[in-house]
């Protein structure tokens, strides 16, 4: 056993992109190896839950936890890693605010299972559904149970730091790794508990280089099928760009590349509800006074819940659509 500080990384309900983003830090990953003893990281090494269970409480210095809490297994590991870790970081949009897996909170759990196992795209003529437990001669076999809604990490356990992004930008991850190493060497101090790390304190608009004038929107359009001025603010051109409510940190990657910001860095500093902030912002720049005319313009945003909560539904004030929690 080495006496280096211990590092863990875990994925709950996520896509694996956060892990790739960590590996995308290139040679920085060698610094992680040089400074830490990696004790648990399912995507990169073999370790069992019982190994973690056997560790002393608080013995892992740093755990990066990505993914939302979708199953009772996710929840169990979140609690276990909380107990074993000194610093628990909600890493990436899923752990922070639910992200795309959190959009499943628009449906109830049975509907989700049904969609996965019995729709046109799934060949399941005998209507076979997974059972969460099954008795065999050797004993009972269990698979994780799906929870009624997806929850964010801090809706389940206490979180020390929040690192947003879908996934977090590799240069931001590298900076955070550097910081932690400097803290280990006594050259820097950790930010206050509860801080957002690896991101800016302002908005994507603030980092965006596109020119801005007075916005008077008379129609919202999708980004294809029209000429887009490469230098002018996208929202001003009627493209629903979420930059105004989104936290900075990515160097305004999408608007720079010619696409609207869809909000992957989550709510900007001080934004209580991401969707509510965007409702406010978009409605303010519409140039119309008559209800019918306003409705015509708003028809250009055919799915407002998806537009405003693509990344943030589970972490929003309302957390889930009504059908997810309503007793059938």
């Amino acid at each position, binding site marked *: 056993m080495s006496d280096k500080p211990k590092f863990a990384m875990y994925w709950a309900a996520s896509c694996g992109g956060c892990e790739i983003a960590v590996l995308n830090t290139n040679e920085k990953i060698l610094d992680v190896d040089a400074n830490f003893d990696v004790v648990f990281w399912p995507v990169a090494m073999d370790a069992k839950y019982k190994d973690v269970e056997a560790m002393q409480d608080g013995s892992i210095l740093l755990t990066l936890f990505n993914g939302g809490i979708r199953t009772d297994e996710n929840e169990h590991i979140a609690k276990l890693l909380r107990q074993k870790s000194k610093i628990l970081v909600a890493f990436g949009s899923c752990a922070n605010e639910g992200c795309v897996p959190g959009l499943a909170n628009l449906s109830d759990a049975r509907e989700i299972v*049904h969609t996965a196992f*019995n*729709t046109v795209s799934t060949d399941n003529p005998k209507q076979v559904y997974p059972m969460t437990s099954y008795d065999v001669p050797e004993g009972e076999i269990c698979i994780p149970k799906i929870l009624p809604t997806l929850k964010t990490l801090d809706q389940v356990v206490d979180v020390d730091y929040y690192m947003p992004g879908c996934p977090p930008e590799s240069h931001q991850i590298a900076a955070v790794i550097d910081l932690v190493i400097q803290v280990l060497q006594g050259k820097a101090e950790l930010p206050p508990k509860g801080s957002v790390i690896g991101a800016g304190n302002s908005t994507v608009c603030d980092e965006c280089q596109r020119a801005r004038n007075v916005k008077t929107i008379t129609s919202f359009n999708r980004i294809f099928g029209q000429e887009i001025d490469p230098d002018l603010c996208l929202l001003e051109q009627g493209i629903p760009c979420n930059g105004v409510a989104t936290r900075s940190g990515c160097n305004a990657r999408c608007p720079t590349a010619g696409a609207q910001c869809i909000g992957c860095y989550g709510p900007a500093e001080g934004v209580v509800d991401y969707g509510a902030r965007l409702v406010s912002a978009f409605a303010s720049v519409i140039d119309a006074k008559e209800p019918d005319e306003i409705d015509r313009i708003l028809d250009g945003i055919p799915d407002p819940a998806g537009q405003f909560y693509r990344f943030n539904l589970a972490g929003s004030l309302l957390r889930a*659509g009504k059908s997810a929690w309503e007793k059938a």
Partner: protein
Amino acid sequence: MTYKFEPTIIGFTCNWCSYRAADLAGTARIKYPPNVRLVRLMCSGRLDPTFVFKALASGADGVIITGCHPGECHYLEQNYKALRRFQLMRRTLVGLGLEPGRVKLIWASAAEGARFASEINIFVEEIRALGPLHWGVPDDEEPSTVHSPLSEMEVPA
């Protein structure tokens, strides 16, 4: 004893018109149901949709927003902004499964005490008809074990 549902409604009123209308209703002793808790804003344009989401998330069964008549806002055009926010907010809430009738926007001038009271009456009855909302997160303690087929459900590919 049978449980009688009494809607909890949050009302956001503009200081200059509709709050005065509510006041007038009071001084004129016009009765309206006590289901509405009024929150006074300086102008309907101050209405951040966050307030409405918070109210619904915290147990309100309905939310009513009131402002000065079009053209009469004391801050020029802010009530038009409130109108646009309201329309987009309602679309968003409907996308989250809320009945559109649970949020309402009305205009009322300072002289319209009686009308204000009657609008409140109407809204309370509309919410009563919709029933309790109790926006909630499902019981965490009970993970769903029902992985059973929902044969009646059509899910398009």
